[in-house]
């Protein structure tokens, strides 16, 4: 099943990775709105558990959620507040304010309830990727 661009792909299951290796067009969109939704602790992308297991996190491929199923449970959480669907991250002010303006279009959450566990924070550092823990007020 290719595409996810014009007219292609199943409803909601499209993953628009281009063959030329260009940046993915957008992330998978959650197929349900219930309890299976989880947010990635690093980039706050929201998808269902199964979607994370299937294709990992598009913004954080180094977390390797598609390879190791444990990573999904450890790096994502079902405790999050609010959903923001970013359709145009370059233009959106809200995405910029939430510092997700550099990620691919998709559904994100405003805040997550917990921090990324230590070992994954080192994985981030190894890949030269910044991790900002959620603010505690």
């Amino acid at each position: 099943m290719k595409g996810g661009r014009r007219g292609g792909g199943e409803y909601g299951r499209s993953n628009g990775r281009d063959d030329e290796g260009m940046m993915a067009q957008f992330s998978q969109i959650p197929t349900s709105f219930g309890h299976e939704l989880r947010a990635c602790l690093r980039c706050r992308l929201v998808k269902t558990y199964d979607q994370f297991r299937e294709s990992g996190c598009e913004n954080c491929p180094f977390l390797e959620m598609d390879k190791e199923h444990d990573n999904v449970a450890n790096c994502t959480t079902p405790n999050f507040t609010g959903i923001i669907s970013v359709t145009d991250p370059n233009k959106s002010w809200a995405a910029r304010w939430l510092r997700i303006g550099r990620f691919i279009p998709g559904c994100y959450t405003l805040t997550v309830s917990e921090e990324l566990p230590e070992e994954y924070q080192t994985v981030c550092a190894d890949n030269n990727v910044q991790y900002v823990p959620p603010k505690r007020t």
Partner: protein
Amino acid sequence: MVRRDSENVYDGVEEEVQGRRVIHDVEEKEAEEEYVRQRKRQRAGKRTVGVGGNGEDETEGSDRGRRRKPPVMKFIDFEAEVDDDEEEEDEGEDDDFIDEGADQLVMVNEPEQRMGRVDIIAEECEDDINEMERRVMERYTRPSRIIMERQEMDHAGDANEVEQQALLPTLSDPKLWLVKCAIGHEREIAIRLMQRSVHGEGLCISSVIALDHLKNYIYVEAETIANVKEALDGLRNVYSSFVPQVVPIEEMTAVLSVENKTMDITKGAWVRMKRGDYKGDLAQVVDVDDVKREVTVKLIPRLDLQHLAEKSAVKARNEQLKKRAVVPPPRFFKKEEVRKYKNLRVCKKWNRNLGEGFVQLEGPSLPQLVFKDGFLYKTVSMKSINTNYIQPSFAELEMFNGRRRDVCGDIANLSTTSRKKGHFMKGDAVIVVRGDLKNLEGWVHNVEGSTVHVRPKTRLPEILSFNEKELCKFFKPGEQIKVVSGVLEGASGTVVKVNGHVLTVLSDTNSEHIHVFADYAVKSTEFTKPLAQMGGYELYDLVQLIDKSFGVIIRMEVEGLEAREDLKFLSLARI
């Protein structure tokens, strides 16, 4: 405001400087551009090397034409020059500039270093610019790196609250429009709009925000109202009759701020029930489920087993049972009591969430009642508990911890957080309980709002100020105190023991030990004399009690009399 274009370029370039400090300052960026312009001129053949300071223009006039300035000239400012307009060209140049500099330098931001850099630039001006640009472009077309670089830039640059200010919305940003929709469908609509946009319907919206705490509405970010309407066209659960309202710029950031109140319910916290039989009862949180917005709390059960047994029997006969007239008193649950009732059974259950074994009370048509150690564990929605300003009274805590002799641990924990502080008055002896100066004793000099000024007991000269929460009143055994707030208000006595925040006081009136929070007491010389007479009765009067028994008044207190009944067994002979 920083231009978006140049911001992009800088962000891209920063990847060379990975792990080093990012250039934040607008001024510095402009300074960088200056150097680029200089370098271009150098390449063009005018070998003017360096000028001192930040953001100085390149030199002209007498310096132009000189191939090499003596190094010391770097430190001397010549006349400031007028800028040429070469903004566009700078963008591409910046990459090369920092590109080379980065190899040789450690720190990017130091002004002194910059002078060194200028020297290096001068040396390398023979490089082919086009080649440089080509390399840079190549580097940037590698996709995965782009993602990582950009993400890195994003976070690295904006990790600060000051930088967050730079992200405030401007007039050129798309606006937020408030849209009304059906309750409960907010998330669904946000996700559907995402799907629509992904399926290439050319939506001109930048984002859709569905907040958990805002029911009935969502925000759509778009340039014009027409874009919003077009995007929502045909969607179910959206009220098309409601004209989308624009959010004023000042209020845009408030939309995205999350109120952290609900996230603060932690395990072990004390709460009070708002509804039902347990309304007003103290409870302790044992589990929090944010997804379902529920908490599991531990309560002292108020069961009426008789009633429950009847209820199940009655249901079987399809009748309605009368509601209980009175709420049962709180009592710990005992399995043995259930055996009396045939309809009710107990069984052991293992609860996955809490990882512990529980006893469940079962019966036909009974709601789920789960017990452990005598406590009832109830799962309720977050809305039906009260988390703010809970002040458990000593008595309640004792009840709760009756099984564990750990009352003081909990109290100490509580007293500085949720308990309302008694007033500190001038002259009170206090002790610091939190922070670096813990265990420092002193006297209150004066109180200003929630800051208390204390003169320390030791040789520290000044008057120190503390937050109310960091202090606790301090009493020594043998002191006379009077209780000024709480259930025991009005009582007075002598301190016999100090146990953290709790004083054990020998009461004047009834010669018993009472426990009182230190903060509720003040030093006093009042002595509550036991009343000798009240309401027509005198001490040691023989009286007839309500249930026709006799008793002698042995004690009179403000609230009532205490008569000893069992005296009659001893004294019947005397009478």
